[in-house]
């Protein structure tokens, strides 16, 4: 029975519940026990979760109480939503505010912090019938590509416990890959959904900027952050996305998606023009051979399915994406993280310094932020503060904004001649724990292919496209029977609001690639 339940994708489980073949409460308990076992095991398990629900919720989709404040149309939207997800439990990245559960964004600064309201994206999915199963581990404030920057210890890759799951949504990706959650919600700022999806062999989608409300997401970089699904297959990603998108009056940058998200059905790619940018090889590093082989096999499959692969397109400014990103994202982060000052919530460090007999405010601020933030967060706050400083603003922030505009223009030009752009999701497969922690730039390079799409605000999906046999796998969780090697991700990107086209193409390729997304189940 349990093996059968575990084998069901979220969409299949939802259908089975709808048909009366599966009980939503039993499904919840099944995953709750699996997740709780991993949580209790800590670093002996995969350390995917920072919190696991204690009991099954009441009737799925029931309105417990309205938690999204402020604007009347939000309230109406929630009242009208149905229960079409039928009770399939959802793992949610720690940085989403959830009224019933700690929301710590992987930081000591927010250890034990439980917000008084729930993020819009989580609320929408809950109203649609996906109850909260667990909160997943992440890099602190989503800053990182390995989930090693979490105050709650690193998450391990279920394909090989000596390796990282990617990040920052590493807990979400690993939980789905290990079968500890049917599906999970993540966020992507420069690749934080796609890169861990790639390293864990699952599907990860970053929607068009503005498609999903950011209200209640503990912000990293506001102009880049976007929520999206991490799932076992493309159909699940479409199903989750369909219930997340939409204008939210609580987020001024959110947009009404011009299309309903449909469940993908395409099996062929006839007439689809896929571009491969000339600027594939990153500076100072290169694509691993095993990744390159998987990528080219996927392109050959795409051609067999009827696609035209065009290797003659160019994104001339994309190589500057990473540099621009590491100005803009830290600049916004330095401001977004200013609110963590010890005054109202979260950590407050005791101050020993007194000024005229009273606690010294500046000393309290300094100690709180010294104790509460990890190294990577401090590094980016300092980078961002510097970039915004008087006299440096134009040279750094101003120029980075211009590069961002140029990259968006590059994509617009490219999409005049192709429908989709394909790249490997990450230059390499999952790397060893600790391998890149001492060298931030090599860590940043793992987002080389994903950052340009984030800067342009366009949608992109990562699907598993095979196993790289370049690296031997150590300590896999019963996956030896499925051969060796580590998962490689294929990234497909399309113009703004092209999610349906993207999902259809990914669906057709997924069928042809036939990757076993259950191979790393624990």
């Amino acid at each position, binding site marked *: 029975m349990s093996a059968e339940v575990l084998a069901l994708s979220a969409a299949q489980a939802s259908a089975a519940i709808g048909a009366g073949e599966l009980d939503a409460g039993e499904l919840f308990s099944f995953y709750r026990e699996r997740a709780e076992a991993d949580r209790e095991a800590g670093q002996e398990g995969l350390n995917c979760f920072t919190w696991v629900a204690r009991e099954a919720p009441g009737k799925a989709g029931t309105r417990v109480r309205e938690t999204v404040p402020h604007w009347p149309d939000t309230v109406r939207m929630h009242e009208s939503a149905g229960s079409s997800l039928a009770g399939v439990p959802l793992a949610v990245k720690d940085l989403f505010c959830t009224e019933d559960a700690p929301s710590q964004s992987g930081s000591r600064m927010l250890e034990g912090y439980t917000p008084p309201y729930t993020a819009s994206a989580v609320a929408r999915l809950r109203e649609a019938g996906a109850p909260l199963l667990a909160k997943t581990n992440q890099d602190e404030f989503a800053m990182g590509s390995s989930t090693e920057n979490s105050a709650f210890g690193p998450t391990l890759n279920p394909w090989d416990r000596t390796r990282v799951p990617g990040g920052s949504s590493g807990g979400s990706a690993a939980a789905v890959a290990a079968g500890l959650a049917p599906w999970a919600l993540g966020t992507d700022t420069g690749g934080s959904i796609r890169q861990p999806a790639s390293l864990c062999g699952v599907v990860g989608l970053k929607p068009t900027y503005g498609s999903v409300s950011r*209200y*209640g997401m503990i912000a990293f970089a506001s102009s880049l952050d976007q929520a999206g699904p991490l799932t076992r297959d493309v159909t699940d990603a479409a199903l989750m996305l369909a219930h997340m998108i939409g204008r939210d009056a609580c987020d001024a940058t959110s947009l009404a998606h011009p299309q309903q998200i449909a469940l993908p059905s395409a099996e062929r790619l006839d007439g689809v023009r896929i571009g491969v940018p000339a600027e594939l090889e990153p500076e100072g590093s290169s694509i691993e051979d095993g990744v390159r082989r998987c990528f080219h096999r996927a392109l050959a499959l795409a051609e067999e399915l009827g696609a035209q692969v065009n290797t003659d397109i160019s994104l001339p400014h994309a190589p500057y994406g990473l540099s621009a990103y590491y100005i803009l994202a830290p600049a916004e982060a330095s*401001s977004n993280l200013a609110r963590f*000052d010890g*005054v*109202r919530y979260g950590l407050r460090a005791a101050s020993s310094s007194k000024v005229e007999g*009273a606690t010294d405010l500046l000393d309290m601020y300094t100690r709180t932020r010294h104790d509460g933030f990890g190294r990577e967060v401090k590094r980016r706050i300092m980078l961002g503060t510097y970039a915004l400083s*008087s006299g440096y603003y134009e040279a750094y922030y101003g120029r980075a904004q211009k590069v961002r505009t140029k990259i968006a223009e590059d994509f617009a030009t490219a999409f005049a001649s192709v429908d989709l752009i394909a790249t490997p999701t990450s230059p390499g497969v999952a790397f060893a724990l600790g391998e890149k922690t001492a060298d931030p730039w090599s860590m940043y390079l793992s987002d080389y292919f994903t950052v340009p799409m984030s800067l342009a605000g366009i949608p992109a999906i990562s699907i598993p496209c095979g196993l790289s046999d370049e690296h031997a796998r150590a300590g896999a969780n019963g996956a030896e029977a499925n051969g060796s090697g580590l998962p490689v991700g294929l990234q497909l990107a399309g113009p703004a609001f092209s999610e349906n086209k993207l999902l259809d193409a990914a669906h057709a390729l997924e069928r042809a690639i036939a990757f076993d997304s259950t191979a790393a189940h624990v």
Partner: protein
Amino acid sequence: MSEPATTPTQPPEGGSPKQKDSYEAVIGLEIHVQLATVTKMFCGCELSFGEPPNTRTCPVCLGLPGSLPVANAHAVHLGLVIGLALGCELAPRSVFHRKNYFYPDLPKGYQISQYDEPLCRGGALGEVRIRRVHLEEDAAKLIHVGSSGRIHGSDASIVDFNRGGTPLAEIVTEPDLRTPEQASEWLKLLRTTLRQLGVSDVNMEEGSLRCDANISLRPACSAELGTKTELKNVNSFRFIERGIRAEIARQERILHAGRQVVQETLHYDPASDRITSLRSKEEAHDYRYFPEPDLLPVAIDQHMLAAARQALSELPSERAARFQRQLALSLETAQLLSFRSELGDYFEAALAAGADPAPPAQALANWVTGELAPRLGGYGREHDDRGGGSAVADEPVDGGVGGDPVNSRVTPAALAALVGMTAAKQVSVGAARQVLDRLIAEGGDPRAIVEAEGLAAMDGGDELAAIVAAAIAANADAAQRVREGNAKAVGPIVGQVMRQTRGRADGTEVARLVNEQLGV
């Protein structure tokens, strides 16, 4: 310190220190105006007027993790009204920036303000040119416990976030003022103008109008500006004059002594008439302004411009005068309808609805202000009691206005018809109130409700006379006392008649019949 650090300089070449009275003061003002919106600048919390501390808050104005601002469309509207009234150029596109600094009254660690692309530029009021008008959010209120009354040296500081996020318009003048008296007079002119525009309470004592002064001295007849200081929070007309006078005197002493004025931010203490330094230029913050990524630029469209012009076209006092003159409304009613323009708009729409019988203007105005508006008091302002404070906003960014009867189920035509029927004594006042309750709950046509509910007024015929007779019989004691000359004792009898007729009977007619039957 009473005089901040100054830099000694050589006396001017070949000369003694300048003669007294040879300096001219150059004064510019920065005025913060709390806008008279219903809700805060970036969230749905209602503005606070003396509520218990921290009761008008929500995740947004507390700066909780994950919360996002949404600009208040009505605040933008009021900013445009100010800009138009001051003859400013309105920016087709203006941008909110983040002004970053740490302070306990600033929950996000930054203030959302406007920087190099403000809502309005240029303009003038009287002889003083306006440099710019921009929108921003107010800080929370800090209360320092202890003897000093300031953050340094206090035993503790407590924060009330009720004020945090209140919409502010900052009006910055060019340095066109020359004397303390002139500054105070001009500020009075500005206050009157803003009050007439209905954009703010402009009450200096309550802090809805706050003023800082930039002051420098220069040799008389010189065109060059001297080094300026910024005098913070001179918050009454008296203190503005006294504070500026004190600062001019301080700068004169420095210059006469052959020293240089240091650019710094100063605090005026009216109790001691002393000026102290808050921070010097070297200590000035680097605010690291950058465009607020959580908000879109404010794009002014024709609709918003038209609405701002409309608001300007007739100032509230002019509208009140017109209501008195043309419709013979009482002063009080005319002012109520004018100062709450949504009520005035509704009233005029009802008056123009062509109800038959037509309602008298004063009666209609009374029903709008005295019956309908109080019943709609909570309209669109649902509060919750969860402490999260998530009020449902009545000022969404799409320009909706809450508490506005036009958003209720009672159409202006329906109210006009109801008041017309009441005035023609087709329904009693009591019955009409019942009909109004139904209209508010369900909408519909008042005449149909009257017919369906049998609420049409009873004429003074036999049916009513019989009910009155029964009521007298049932209240024999009261009847006896009325006969003995105690007119007030009629109450229980009339009350029973009204209960039995469910308010359909006209109270005056009932009283007349009771007295008639009792022979008094």
